[in-house]
């Protein structure tokens, strides 16, 4: 039922309020039903594109989180100066004035000394919180901004490669037109992740229409169970499989889209013996070989159709070849037989899958959509957390995307889509207009990103001053070195000129979300002061000095449910949509909205002009809606300014509270923008080699060896640390997977979701293959120790199944709370991250991604009682 059709009933207060969920970062649009001041039901909002009226189990259970009696209601101050895991902080209730004065005093001291000593951390679950927290960080003047486990576990690789290859934060199949989708460790359309509920409907419709779906995953769960085919592989070996499939397509079957590769990639660029582009001496542009003229010319001077993709050439005596033919030859080493040894996927299956993908791509076809002729490639290879959650995440993800690139299945009808990277703007104001554009060497620069640190062109590596070292490892996003065991050693190595002193947290439970608790605890003890804005006391709270009670999503206002606004819009045709968040209930006790707390803190610190300027910049407010430097605004006023700026003076916060969302139609030129924008993407990452050389030039004189195999221009299979473990008895690859009824560690406290998890045989257990378990004398229900070669250990109960790779050990979600602040969550499930080392040796030297699989020994402790 739409918002307008829901008539008020007889009760004095009976309202349906259009807002946005925040039980996960999908932020589906909701209708909250409030009767006499109590929210009694939450449904999906059918008027919105974000969720399309659907709501998952997490979303409908939101009222149980909202009314959880264990939520914080008063500011707290620790009285025990000793910090440690399980050490009682001795919380004492204090007033907001005392709490904010304390926080402001500490932050002001630090800001006066060196603002970089502050680290700001925020959860990605409330995606709209990026605006106030990023602005606060920028206004304060610190570059140390983190999302804790958010990037390390789910996005450092996925977002980087999606940004470079699709101008987008992530990728999805074009569900409406796709006929053959291959998922590598992804769950798009299966109740998790970006555009969660929207994609559920789209994926289901696509499957009903006949879209074949192949899921490559060590575990047959939410996506694979609904697929046409599950392809179990050894964890972390996705690149080997994808490259072998590419080899089958390109070399064995001769399937590739030459016109696409010539016009839209750097496939024609000539590469010299030094692995670098040959460049025009005058313009410095990369050269291509003009087949008609028989000469090498800058790529801008040759029609795409005349560019050579293959052949050997000489330019001024230098031998060179187009990058495509180098890639083509590189692929030859990835034979299905060799890939079988790495992945365990039979060579015959790899040949079949590669052939199916290539043939289903229908290279050369076009389709007319809304009167516009666009290329038609109804295949998509997508990846996400599973494939990218490793040290080799860059190559894993790039290898998967090469499947798309070889056949031109990139941002055209039916293909792998970046979701919504090209917008022609809101028609009435022209605001929200962005399109990918050509950057250095003609390669694509995204038009819209999570911020202005675009994935390409990559920044110039330099001696780092950020605590996360991202200014040296310039392709990194969230850094493990904010919590790693070797952080001090690295900071000394790179002469980082300061040390962190204060941490301001919003909603992260970093004690659980990154890696082994002992390492994280040691890093937190180094802070002189920690303040946290949160819903609950968590395991992280044990290290806080001040805890501030936050309002939740049913008590908050946001001018946007996402940042950027397309973050959760489904890909493909349909409508653009902007949704907001509005309160359906009042704060309980002394809870306050985090955005208002930041505005208050900024005033107390004396940085209101900086905060306002950062808000102006972050959300691109234009005159006359820009915030004045010296005025203290309410968050509602900031929201009102952004909405009016984007949608016109008549559509401010009040208009949106009444209407919920605004929509306008997408155009084929926007959705299938690849054919309309003159940009190229790199199938040969020349810039990666250049970056590797520069990073090594800085790091290696300081004794940090940069493994250059990670910086080769073409993707390879690089083994994870777990693949190299040879200790006897350590014969399982442990990994965790997203449980679709849970979001990180947060929803474990929700009683409805807890009940669902207890009914689910896998949520709180350890999945192990039936045959290998029985062969080792392990039975269903056995309690086991799971131990790494480094001595990290967790205990869990086995669930025998055939739906997992024989070498795999699958643990769901982020469970295993031990703190008292979330009593429903306490003691449930297995805390997988306890097994993960957080250090240089387990981080990608390219994008800083942590390796999330680990080789373990399983030891039986006892049978099911």
């Amino acid at each position, binding site marked *: 039922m739409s918002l307008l059709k829901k008539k008020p009933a007889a009760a004095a207060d009976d309202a349906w309020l259009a807002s946005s969920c925040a039980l996960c970062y999908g932020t589906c649009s909701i209708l909250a039903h409030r009767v006499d001041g109590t929210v009694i039901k939450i449904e999906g909002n059918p008027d919105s594109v974000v969720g399309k009226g659907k709501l998952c189990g997490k979303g409908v259970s939101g009222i149980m989180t909202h009314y959880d009696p264990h939520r914080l209601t008063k500011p707290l101050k620790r009285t025990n100066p000793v910090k440690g895991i399980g050490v009682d902080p001795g919380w004492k209730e204090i007033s907001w004035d005392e709490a904010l004065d304390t926080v402001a005093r500490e932050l002001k001291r630090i800001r006066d000394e060196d603002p970089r000593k502050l680290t700001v951390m925020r959860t990605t679950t409330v995606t709209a919180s990026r605006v106030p927290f990023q602005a606060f960080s920028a206004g304060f003047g610190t570059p140390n901004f983190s999302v804790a486990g958010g990037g390390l576990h789910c996005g450092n690789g996925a977002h980087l490669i999606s940004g470079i290859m699709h101008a987008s934060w992530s990728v999805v199949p074009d569900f409406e037109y796709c006929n053959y989708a291959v998922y590598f460790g992804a769950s798009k359309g299966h109740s998790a992740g970006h555009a969660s509920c929207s994609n559920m409907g789209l994926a289901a419709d696509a499957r009903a229409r006949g879209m074949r779906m192949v899921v490559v995953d060590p575990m047959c769960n939410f996506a694979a169970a609904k697929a046409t085919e599950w392809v179990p592989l050894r964890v972390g070996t996705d690149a080997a499989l994808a490259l072998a499939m590419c080899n089958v397509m390109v070399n064995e079957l001769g399937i590739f889209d030459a016109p696409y590769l010539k016009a839209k990639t750097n496939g024609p660029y000539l590469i010299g013996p030094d692995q670098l582009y040959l460049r025009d001496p005058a313009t410095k542009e990369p050269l291509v070989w003009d087949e008609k003229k028989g000469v090498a010319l800058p790529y801008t001077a040759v029609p795409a159709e005349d560019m050579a993709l293959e052949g050997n050439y000489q330019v001024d005596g230098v031998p060179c070849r187009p990058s495509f033919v180098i890639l083509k030859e590189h692929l030859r080493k990835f034979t299905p037989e060799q890939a079988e040894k790495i992945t365990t996927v039979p060579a015959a299956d790899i040949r079949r899958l590669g052939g199916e993908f290539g043939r289903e791509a229908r290279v050369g076809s076009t389709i007319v959509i809304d009167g516009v002729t666009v290329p038609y490639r*109804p295949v998509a290879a997508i990846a996400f957390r599973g494939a990218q959650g490793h040290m080799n995440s860059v190559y894993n993800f790039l290898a998967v995307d090469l499947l798309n690139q070889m056949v031109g299945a990139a941002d055209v009808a039916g293909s792998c889509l970046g979701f919504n990277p090209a917008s022609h703007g809101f028609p009435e104001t022209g605001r929200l207009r962005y399109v990918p554009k050509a950057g250095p060497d003609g390669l694509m620069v995204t038009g819209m990103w999570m911020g202005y640190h675009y994935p390409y062109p990559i920044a110039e590596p330099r001696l780092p001053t950020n605590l996360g070292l991202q200014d040296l490892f310039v392709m990194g996003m969230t850094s493990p070195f904010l919590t790693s065991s070797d952080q001090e050693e690295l900071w000394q190595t790179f002469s980082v000129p300061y040390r962190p002193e204060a941490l301001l947290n919003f909603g992260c439970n970093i004690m659980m979300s990154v890696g082994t608790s002992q390492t994280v605890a040691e890093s937190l003890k180094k802070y002189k002061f920690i303040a946290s804005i949160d819903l609950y006391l968590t395991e992280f709270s044990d290290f806080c000095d001040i805890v501030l009670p936050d309002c939740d999503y049913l008590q908050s206002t946001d001018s946007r449910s996402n940042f950027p606004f397309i973050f959760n819009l489904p890909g493909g045709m349909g409508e653009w949509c902007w949704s907001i968040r509005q309160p359906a209930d009042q704060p309980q006790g002394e809870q306050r909205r985090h955005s208002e707390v930041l505005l208050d803190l900024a005033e107390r610190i004396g940085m209101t002009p900086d905060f306002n300027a950062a808000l102006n910049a972050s959300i691109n407010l234009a005159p006359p809606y820009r915030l004045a430097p010296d005025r203290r605004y309410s968050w509602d006023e900031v929201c009102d300014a952004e909405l009016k700026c984007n949608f016109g003076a008549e559509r401010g916060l009040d208009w949106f509270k009444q209407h919920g969302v605004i929509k306008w139609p997408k155009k084929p030129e926007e959705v299938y923008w690849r054919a309309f924008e003159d940009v190229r993407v790199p199938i040969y990452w020349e810039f990666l080699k250049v970056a590797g050389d520069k990073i090594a030039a800085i790091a290696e004189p300081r004794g940090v060896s940069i493994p250059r195999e990670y910086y080769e221009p073409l993707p390879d299979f690089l083994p994870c640390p777990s693949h190299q473990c040879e200790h006897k008895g350590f014969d399982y690859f442990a990994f965790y997977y997203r449980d679709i009824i849970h979001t990180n560690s947060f929803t474990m406290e929700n009683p409805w979701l807890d009940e669902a998890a207890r009914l689910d045989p896998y949520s709180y257990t350890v999945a192990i293959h039936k045959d290998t378990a029985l062969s080792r004398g392990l039975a269903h229900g056995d309690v086991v120790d799971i131990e790494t070669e480094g001595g990290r250990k967790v205990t869990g109960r086995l669930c025998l199944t055939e739906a997992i790779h024989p070498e795999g050990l699958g643990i769901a979600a982020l469970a295993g709370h031990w703190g008292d602040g979330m009593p429903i969550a306490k003691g449930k499930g297995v805390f997988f991250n306890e097994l993960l080392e957080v250090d240089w040796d387990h981080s990608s030297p390219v994008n800083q991604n942590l390796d999330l699989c680990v080789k373990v020994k399983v030891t039986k402790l006892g049978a099911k009682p």
Partner: protein
Amino acid sequence: MIAAWAPRLAHRLAVLWRSRRDGRASVPPAQAAIVEPPPLDEMDADGPPLLKVWLFGGLAPVAACRSFTVPLDAPTSLRSLMAMMVERFGPAFRELVMQDNGQIYGCCRLFLDGFPVEVDDIIDPARGPRNLELIVLTSSEGG
């Protein structure tokens, strides 16, 4: 095998990897609000128009000032203006805004009279006094 979408398939030509818009109207241009720049407090009626530069976030402390003025004698590129600021405010300022290769960081945002501008844009003195705001946004993040 032709799937259910076959009736919508228009024709099978060599793929056209160049745009073809089929006569559809282009998108209307932006209708940004037009406002007068705020008055500058250091205007000299007889001199050239002034550019008032405002520094926010981490830039103000390292420059040890919130704002300063620059006479607009002639069309001035923002790039040259940034170079002047780097020269004037030293290495700590440079570290925040400029890469070692001289490129300005994408996170360094510039707004001229409230509208975003690029470092290669030119400030035209004919339009009178102007306000330029600079702030460096935080960059690295995942999720």
